[in-house]
């Protein structure tokens, strides 16, 4: 799986760009605010149909323009697939080989991405929200049913909380209706919990191995899924009974007390909670191991390697971690890297890479080109 060509029109600060890629590793070098991350964002958009930075598609359109177009030529199984996304204030259109796909779900999954950016440290350090979003995005990349179930669950949850609020105000409760929405919630909750548990289990196997290597065999990582249900047996009946035990508490607090909306993941290094007691360096290693383990996870789920996007993180990694990263990529995974400074990057990594210099939304293949302007 490889992107051979990327074309942008009125995307963020790019008016017009047409760029070809010939190597597995591609490094974008430039100062801040020149447009490096926007290139990664456009690739992320082509895979997921959404930006990793904003949920408002309109923000992707160049400020003075009416619409934005992002296209790519993707090499998959020796054939070329043309992908295109057009964003206008009216909405978004997605195309595969020039044929419009009416449903986004028909589009997503042509290729997958794994992005690693500085803010991913939040997966370890941040509040549980970040971790839930992380699970949802990653499972969603390979399972459209999961996204559907999650949307349904959230909708029922809102109805249920509103119902509880009303019940508290009026001091009247319709138990028949509460039973019905609780049954729906329990059914979806049980299914989502099972999928999350399976995902974390697989992630743990891959990440543990990686983390072990990165830490030079001194640390043992353990990722544990903390299901809010805290049940061994995630069956519908069991979960439903649990919700029923909470009826009175739910009623008093006027909100649903248990469920997947309160799930979390815990990271342990040598049995110590890394979020609470890990050093900055340890937390960064965990985040890196978790993200890199997705490469193997996606390969197993879809039988294709994802495309890896490293936003401003490579030069911050020490030699050991860069070596590990190279190991994961193994000449099989196409990788796009942004950095402000080439000096922190290992020599043997640079040798394998094509280097692009980014200045003011223009791409130059030689460093001299953009210094030439200053003369």
């Amino acid at each position, binding site marked *: 799986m490889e992107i051979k060509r990327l074309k942008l029109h009125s995307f963020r600060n790019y008016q017009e760009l047409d760029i070809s890629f010939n190597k597995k590793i591609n490094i974008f070098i430039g100062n801040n605010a020149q447009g490096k991350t926007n290139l990664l964002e456009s690739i992320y958009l082509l895979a997921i149909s959404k930006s990793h930075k904003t949920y408002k598609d309109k923000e992707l359109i160049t400020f003075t323009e009416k619409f934005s177009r992002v296209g790519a030529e993707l090499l998959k199984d020796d054939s070329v697939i043309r992908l295109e996304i057009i964003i206008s204030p009216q909405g978004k259109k997605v195309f595969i080989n020039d044929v419009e796909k009416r449903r986004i779900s028909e589009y997503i999954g042509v290729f997958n991405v794994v992005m690693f950016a500085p803010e991913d440290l939040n997966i370890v350090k941040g509040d549980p929200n970040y971790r839930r979003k992380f699970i949802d995005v990653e499972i969603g990349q390979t399972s459209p049913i999961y996204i559907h179930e999650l949307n349904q669950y959230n909708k*029922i949850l809102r109805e249920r909380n509103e119902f509880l609020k009303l019940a508290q105000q009026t001091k009247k409760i319709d138990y028949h209706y509460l039973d*019905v929405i609780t049954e729906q919630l329990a059914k979806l909750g049980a299914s989502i919990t099972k999928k999350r548990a399976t995902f974390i289990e697989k992630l743990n196997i891959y990440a543990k191995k990686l983390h072990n290597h990165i830490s030079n065999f001194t640390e043992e990582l353990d990722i544990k899924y903390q299901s809010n249900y805290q049940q061994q047996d995630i069956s519908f009946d069991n979960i439903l009974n649990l919700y029923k035990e909470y009826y009175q508490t739910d009623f008093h607090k006027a909100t649903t007390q248990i469920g997947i909306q309160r799930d979390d993941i815990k990271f342990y290094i040598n049995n110590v909670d890394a979020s609470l007691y890990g050093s900055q360096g340890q937390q960064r290693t965990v985040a890196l191991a978790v993200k890199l383990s997705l490469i193997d996870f996606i390969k197993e789920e879809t039988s294709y390697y994802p495309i890896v996007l490293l936003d401003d993180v490579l030069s911050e990694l020490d030699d050991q971690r860069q070596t590990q990263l190279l190991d994961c990529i193994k000449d099989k995974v196409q990788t796009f890297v942004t950095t402000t400074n080439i000096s922190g990057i290992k020599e043997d990594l640079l040798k394998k890479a094509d280097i692009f210099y980014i200045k003011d939304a223009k791409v130059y293949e030689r460093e001299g080109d953009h210094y030439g302007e200053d003369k």
Partner: protein
Amino acid sequence: MYYPDTIQKLIESFSKLPGIGPKSAERLALHVATKMKEEDALSFAKGLISVKRDLMHCSVCGNLTDKNPCSICRDSHRDRSVIAVVEEIKDLIAMEKMREYRGLYHVLNGVISPMNGIGPQDINIPSLLERLKNEEVKEIILATNTTIEGESTALYIAKLLENTDIKVTRIARGLPVGGGLEYADEVTLLKALEGRREIINNNK
């Protein structure tokens, strides 16, 4: 006001209709004022008054009718032991177009949704229960939409009828007729798979 009062009022009236924004309302009002023939405008106005004055909800099933009870409820050839529960009048019309269903209907005129401030008492559920007390009904077909709210409402009615001798059924969901599997989205396909039927069982 830039427009004369009469046009301004007409614009406001049009913009109360679903799907009509301020721009469309303005265009429609100006069309009526300048382009529409007087007889057409009069017949439009009469139609508006007539649907409000001469039409009513059927006191039995909730259908829209000019005679109470409605023609379906009065039809003696229909099977009075089966009632299909639908969300809206347009769903009843869709069922009628099929020309196969010969039972009666009950129109809920909405679905339960606390988010929108609609509880079971706010739609035609009490009248359905009243009806079941008085009529000899053998089967209730829950034909609400397959949205979350439609599903909750169907399950709620089913729950109310749990300990009666009435058979409660739910319409099936799955693949559209004549449609290939390749065109179905994943969720529809999953529902079709879950609702599969046995054709031959060789392990009896």
